[in-house]
C-alpha cells in the first residue's frame, strides 16, 4: 500500500469545555476512495475540517506527505492540494460558474481579466464532469447537482491531491449520484485521495476502498472496506444491532381527512388529485424536480395555487400558511437550515415560534415555553445543551426539534418533506417511529421522500409524481422499488390512479 498523503494521528478537538473528538487517527492514501461514516454528531464534520485546515486540532498531529503540519491558514492547506467541499455549498450565489471556479485565482492578461481563457477552461472542466450548465450561468439559478459539479470543478482547477467531500450525494438524484461516482472513480484512478461522508451505506459499499467508522467522537473502525457489508457498517455506527428500521403498518384508517382535486401550482404541478384518511401515511415519491415539494407548498398556501381542497369534508380556501395551520394542516419543510429553524436562536425560541400565540396571554409566558421545551426534549429525544444555538446542533437533533416545533401546534394533517435527509440511521429509525406514532394517534400524514426504501417502508400508499403530475399510485403488494422507479421515470404501465382517488 502507498504511503498516506494526509493522516491524522491521535487528534482531539474541544469546543470550550466539551471535547468532541477523542484521539482520532486515520490515513488517506493516493488513489483510494475513503469513506467516513457515523451517526450525526459522531464527529465526522469536525474531523474533515481539521484535515482541510479549517480548524486546528486541540491535541494530536496532522501529517501531510509524512511531515507534521500545522496549517496556519486555509490557503496553506489548499496550497498543499487539499480541498474540502462543504455540504452547504461554498459558492458566491450571485457570481457565475466561471467566476466561482476562478475565484481568488483569476487569469489575467496585463491588468485585465482574461475572460476568454477562463471561459474556455471552465467549459473544459465542466465537460469533464458531464455537467452541461453554461459557464456564465449564475450559481443562484443552478440546481443542487450543478452547484456540486461547480464545486468539484473548482477543486479540479486547484490541482487537488486530497478531495474531501461532506455528504456530496445528500441532495443528488440517483442519476446525478451516478455521474458523481464516475467522477470520483476517475479522480481516484489519476491518483487523487478522496474522502467522503454519506449516510447512504449502499453507496459507501459500492465505491469505498477504505472505510473509517466513527461513533461519539472516536474511531471504532478504520481499514479496508472489503468485507464490510451494510449491516456490519450500521451495527458499528450505532453500536448495537439494528432491528427493524420501520415500524409495523397497522392498516387501520379513520375518516376522510383531506381531499384534493385538480390542484395546480403554476409552473410546478398540474391537476393533482388525491385523498387522505386519518391514520394513514401517504408517501409521495418522484425524482427531485418532479414538483413534489411545490405541490404541497401550494396546498399549504406557501405559494400560489388553484384547485379544490376539502378538509374533513368541508371545502376550504387556503392562501396563506397560517390559514392552513388554522385548519389543522401543516407543512414541515425539507430545508431545515434555511426554512425550518432560526439557526442563530436557541431551542426555546425555535420550538414555540409556530405556536407562539398559545404561549401568550398578552405577554409570552417564558416558564410555559421552558416546560414545553423540557417535554419536547423528552418526547423526541433531542440531545444537546438547551443553551446552545440551534445552528450548533447536529442535523438529527435539528430535525427532531423541527418536528417537535411543528407538533406543538397540534396539526391534524402533517405533511413532512424529506423527514430524514442527512441524518443518521439511528435517528432515522426514531423518526419513523414518531411518524407512525402520529398516524396511530389518528392524524393524517403525507411523507415526501427521495429515499425509495423510506417511502416503501413507511407509507401505506404511495403516489409517484413525474414532471408536475401524478404518474401513478402503488400500494400493498405492488409497492416495490421497481414499480416506483418505472412510474417516476415514465416507463412501463400507467397505474390506474385517479379512480381510487374518489
Amino acid at each position, binding site marked *: 500500500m502507498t504511503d498516506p498523503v494526509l493522516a491524522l494521528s491521535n487528534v482531539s478537538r474541544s469546543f470550550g469545555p466539551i471535547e468532541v473528538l477523542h484521539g482520532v487517527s486515520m490515513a488517506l492514501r493516493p488513489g483510494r476512495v475513503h469513506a467516513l461514516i457515523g451517526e450525526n454528531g459522531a464527529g465526522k464534520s469536525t474531523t474533515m475540517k481539521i484535515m482541510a485546515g479549517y480548524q486546528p486540532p486541540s491535541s494530536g498531529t496532522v501529517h501531510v506527505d509524512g511531515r507534521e503540519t500545522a496549517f496556519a491558514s486555509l490557503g496553506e492547506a489548499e496550497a498543499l492540494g487539499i480541498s474540502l467541499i462543504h455540504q452547504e455549498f461554498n459558492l458566491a450565489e450571485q457570481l457565475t460558474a466561471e467566476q466561482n471556479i476562478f475565484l481568488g485565482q483569476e487569469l489575467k492578461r496585463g491588468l485585465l481579466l482574461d475572460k476568454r481563457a477562463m471561459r474556455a477552461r471552465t467549459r473544459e472542466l465542466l465537460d469533464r464532469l458531464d455537467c452541461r450548465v453554461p459557464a456564465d450561468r449564475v450559481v443562484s439559478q443552478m440546481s443542487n447537482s450543478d452547484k456540486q459539479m461547480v464545486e468539484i470543478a473548482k477543486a479540479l482547477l486547484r490541482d487537488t491531491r486530497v478531495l474531501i467531500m461532506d455528504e456530496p450525494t445528500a441532495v443528488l438524484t440517483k442519476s446525478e449520484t451516478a455521474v458523481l461516482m464516475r467522477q470520483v472513480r476517475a479522480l481516484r484512478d489519476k491518483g487523487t485521495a478522496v474522502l467522503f461522508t454519506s449516510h447512504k451505506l449502499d453507496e459507501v459499499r459500492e465505491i469505498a476502498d477504505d472505510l473509517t467508522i466513527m461513533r461519539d467522537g472516536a474511531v471504532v473502525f478504520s481499514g479496508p472496506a472489503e468485507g464490510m457489508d451494510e449491516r456490519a457498517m450500521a451495527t458499528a455506527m450505532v453500536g448495537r444491532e439494528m432491528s427493524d428500521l420501520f415500524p409495523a403498518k397497522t392498516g387501520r384508517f379513520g375518516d376522510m381527512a383531506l381531499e384534493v382535486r385538480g390542484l395546480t401550482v403554476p409552473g410546478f404541478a398540474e391537476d393533482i388529485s388525491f385523498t387522505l384518511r386519518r391514520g394513514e401515511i401517504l408517501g409521495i415519491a418522484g425524482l427531485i424536480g418532479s414538483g413534489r415539494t411545490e405541490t404541497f407548498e401550494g396546498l399549504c398556501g406557501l405559494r400560489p395555487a388553484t384547485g379544490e381542497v376539502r378538509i374533513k369534508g368541508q371545502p376550504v380556501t387556503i392562501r396563506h400558511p397560517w390559514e392552513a395551520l388554522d385548519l389543522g394542516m401543516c407543512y414541515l419543510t425539507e430545508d431545515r437550515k434555511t426554512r425550518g429553524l432560526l439557526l442563530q436562536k436557541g431551542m426555546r425560541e425555535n420550538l414555540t415560534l409556530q405556536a407562539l400565540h398559545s404561549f401568550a396571554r398578552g405577554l409570552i409566558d417564558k416558564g410555559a415555553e421552558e416546560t414545553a421545551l423540557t417535554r419536547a426534549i423528552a418526547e423526541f429525544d433531542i440531545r444537546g445543551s438547551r443553551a446552545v444555538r440551534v445552528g*450548533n446542533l447536529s442535523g438529527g437533533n435539528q430535525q427532531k426539534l423541527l418536528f417537535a416545533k411543528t407538533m406543538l401546534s397540534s396539526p391534524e394533517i402533517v405533511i413532512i418533506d424529506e423527514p430524514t435527509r442527512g441524518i443518521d440511521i439511528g435517528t432515522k429509525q426514531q423518526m419513523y417511529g414518531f411518524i407512525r406514532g402520529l398516524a396511530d394517534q389518528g392524524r393524517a400524514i403525507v411523507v415526501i421522500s427521495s429515499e425509495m426504501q423510506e417511502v416503501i417502508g413507511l407509507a401505506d400508499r404511495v403516489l409517484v409524481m413525474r414532471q408536475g403530475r401524478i404518474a401513478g399510485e402503488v400500494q400493498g403488494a405492488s409497492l416495490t422499488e421497481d414499480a416506483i422507479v418505472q412510474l417516476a421515470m415514465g416507463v412501463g404501465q400507467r397505474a390506474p390512479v385517479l379512480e381510487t382517488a374518489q
Partner: protein
Amino acid sequence: MTVKPQARPKVSMSVIGPIAALIALIVMGALMNPNFLGPDNISNVLSRSAFIGIIAVGMTFVITAGGLDLSVGSMAAFVAGLMILVMNAALPSLGIGVPIILLGMATALVAGLIAGWLNGFLITVLGIEAFIVTLGSMGIYRSLVTWLADGGTLSLDFGLRTFYQPVFYGGILGISWPIIVFAVVVILGEIAMRSSVFGRHCAAIGSNDQVAKYSSVRVGRVRMATYVMLGLLVGVATIMYVPRLGSASSSTGVLWELEAIAAVIIGGTLLKGGFGRVWGTVIGVLILTLIGNILNLTDFVSPYLNGAIQGLIIVLAVVLQRESKPGA
C-alpha cells in the same frame, strides 16, 4: 461527548460595552464640569434625548425585523410643518385653547401613521428594498416641507406657541413632559420587544424571514406594523418638538435618521436584524447626546468636532460588540 466542569458564565461584551461607555462618559463629564450632574443639565440632556430616543425605539423594531427607515428625519420635519399649517389654519375658527392643540396632536399622529404605512406598503406589499423606499421618501418629505415653507420657515402663531410651550417646558414633579413620554415609550417598547408575540416575531423575521414564513408567521403584517409604529412614534416626537421652537423648516430633523440608527446600533441591536433590545437603544441615545453635551460644557475639544466623536463612538461600539464566531 465528554463535558468538562462548566466554566463560569461570562457576561458578554455586548451587554457590558454600552453601559460601560455610558458610565465612562458620565464620569468624564462630572470631572470636567461641576454643573454636569446638576438637575438642570440632567433634565436638559434627557429632554434633548427624548426626540431621537422616541424615534429610535421605533427604529429598534424596524431594524430587528430586518428593515431600515432612512426617512424619519424628513418625516418629522414634514409632520411638524403640516401640524403648524393645520393649527395656524384652524386658529380663526377654534381660537387658542386645548381643542386646537389636540387637533395639532391628532394631525401629527395621523400624518406619522400614514407616512409609516406608505413606507410599509411599498416595502412589504410591493416588495421594494427598504433602503430604496425610505431613501426615496426621505427626499420626498424633505422637499415637501421646503415647499410648504416656501424655502423659509413655517412658524406657529405666537399666541398659540406660548400656549403650547408647556408641553415641552412643563411637566409633573419637575420632570418635563418629553422625558415622561420618552420613559413610557421605552418601558412599553422594552416589554414588547422582550415578552410580546410581536417582538418575538420581529426577531424571527429579522433572523430569517423564510423560516418565519414557513412557521406561519404573518411576515408582511409584522413588517408593516414595525413601519407604522415607527411613523406613529415620529408623530409623537414631533408633538414634543414643535412647542420647543414653534417652527419648522427645511433644516428641521436633518440627520435624525442617522442618529436614531446609530443609537440603535450602539445599543447592541444587530443592523442585519434578528436581535434587538430597546434598553440598549436608550443607552445609545444617551451616549450620543452626552457627547454633544460634554463638548458644549468643556472647552478641551471644539463642539464642531461633535460629529467626528460620535462617528468614532459608533464604529468603536460595533467593533467591541463583535462576538467571536463559535466553532463548528
